[in-house]
């Protein structure tokens, strides 16, 4: 009899075994346990990629919630006013979305500069660097398009100015600007377009690219800074990704959540007066901090080289930095320490300090003109 030949096992397989047989959970856990993260005095910077991801998840979640009441087109301002003042806790959801957007840009920038200084763009991580740069670009377009959606005075003027940058591109610029605006002026048509861009086009581009970026991080692991790389293998310390680094990651996410909550509650995001196409630009108008460097650079150059020449000079300088930043894996390849490597590092220091300086000068200038 079959039952005698094959006695039933003493313990019945539980739910975990049932799922594991079908989904291969233990394979994933084994993989995660096998994965390690290098440990050294710069390990702190490894958390910023995870933080960027966390802020993005918050954006996704609060963005979907805002979609429940937001109406693009000519009702945009009214619906944001309703969200802010009428819907229960609407002010909080909107405030979290705005604060988290700023923190996400900040975290992505920190992540990028730390990857730059650890030379994480070198072989075999070139595509992680490039996909990261495109993700940063998309993050900035997210910020720019989302900023217009409430259609208040500030967002209206900021978008008007921002699109002037597109106007400056020779030949195709003006056509492009008209297409983005959906007309010669920023109008409800622009909000409708930016809305489609912000909630459909950008997420469709962003999510697969993010998966690709995360896949590459999984494949190649974290890069160590050059100083750590050159140590003998016996001196290198690592930490298991699961559960150790994962737990630390969650801890950082918890801190980030608390920071967002405090900022969003104590400094709720304002809604200005409704945009009026006939009103003159308000005093002290300025872009979000992350668009301040190009904005202020143009302002400074304009003082010395007025007119179109100055604008082209500023745009050219910015384009040169962008090209340097994109192509850095090619002229600072792995194993070629020495002058090229040092040149690139100092170039990075120059770019970082230049950006911080331009942001600081930009805000100082605002304070000055206000007086």
């Amino acid at each position, binding site marked *: 009899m079959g039952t005698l030949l094959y006695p039933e096992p003493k313990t019945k397989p539980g739910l975990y075994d049932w799922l594991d047989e079908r989904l291969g959970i233990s394979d994933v856990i084994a993989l995660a346990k096998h994965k390690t993260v290098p440990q050294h005095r710069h390990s702190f910077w490894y958390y910023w990629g995870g933080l960027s991801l966390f802020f993005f998840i918050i954006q996704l979640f609060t963005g979907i*919630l805002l979609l429940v009441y937001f109406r693009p087109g000519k009702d945009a301002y009214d619906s944001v006013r309703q969200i802010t003042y009428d*819907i*229960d*806790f609407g002010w909080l959801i909107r405030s979290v979305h705005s604060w988290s957007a700023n923190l996400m840009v900040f975290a992505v920038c920190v992540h990028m500069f730390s990857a730059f200084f650890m030379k994480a763009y070198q072989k075999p991580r070139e595509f992680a660097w490039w996909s990261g740069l495109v993700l940063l670009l998309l993050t900035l377009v997210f910020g720019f398009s989302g900023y217009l959606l409430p259609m208040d005075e500030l967002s209206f003027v900021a978008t008007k100015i921002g699109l002037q940058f597109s106007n400056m591109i020779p030949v195709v610029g003006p056509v492009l600007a008209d297409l983005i605006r959906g007309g010669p002026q920023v109008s409800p048509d622009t909000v409708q377009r930016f809305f489609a861009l912000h909630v459909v086009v950008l997420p469709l581009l962003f999510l697969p690219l993010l998966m690709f970026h995360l896949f590459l991080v999984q494949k190649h692991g974290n890069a160590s800074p050059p100083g750590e790389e050159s140590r003998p293998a016996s001196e290198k310390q690592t930490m298991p990704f699961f559960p150790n680094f994962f737990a630390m990651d969650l801890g950082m996410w918890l801190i980030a*959540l608390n920071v967002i909550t405090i900022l969003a509650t104590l400094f709720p995001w304002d809604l200005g007066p409704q945009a009026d196409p006939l009103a003159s630009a308000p005093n002290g108008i300025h872009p979000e901090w992350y668009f301040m460097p190009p904005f202020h650079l143009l302002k400074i150059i304009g003082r010395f080289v007025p007119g179109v020449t100055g604008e082209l000079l500023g745009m050219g300088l910015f384009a040169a930095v962008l090209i340097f930043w994109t192509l850095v894996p090619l002229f600072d390849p792995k194993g070629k320490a020495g002058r090229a490597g040092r040149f690139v590092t100092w170039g990075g220091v120059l770019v970082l300090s230049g950006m911080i300086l331009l942001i600081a000068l930009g805000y100082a200038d605002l304070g000055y003109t206000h007086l």
Partner: protein
Amino acid sequence: MSSEALNPELNPPHSSRRDSLIKIGTGLVAACYAGAAGYPVYRYLSTPVTRANEQGQVSTVSIPLKDLPGAGSATMFLFGSRPALLIHHADGRYVSFDAVCTHLGCTVKFEPRNSRIFCACHGGTYDMNTGAVIAGPPPRGLTNFKVEVADGHVTVSRA
């Protein structure tokens, strides 16, 4: 179980209690966070429900007689946030009911020819004078409202 777990020196007796305390504590903190995040989200999403319920607190509705159709017909009106039915019978009486079928929530209609209130969704049939169920699946009759006629107005209120 490994030999380490059985070794009393490596695994002193209080540690399992401490472990479970840590687990309970973590669970409680996680529950607090989930609640603190979940409550505003719930209130945010349910605002239209709350507002509709507030509007539904209406206890009387007054309709000018001149706006009403003649005897032997009926009119629909909003009682708070729900549709309601006011029937002007051929003998001059006014009766009023909640117009939401008690079966699955469709809006009912007055059929003067068949002398009944009828729900087209599943054939629920109600008495046109009392709102009681005559036929079909509804579990109970329609809610009856009080009707008063005075000063050129018909005033409907909760009975």
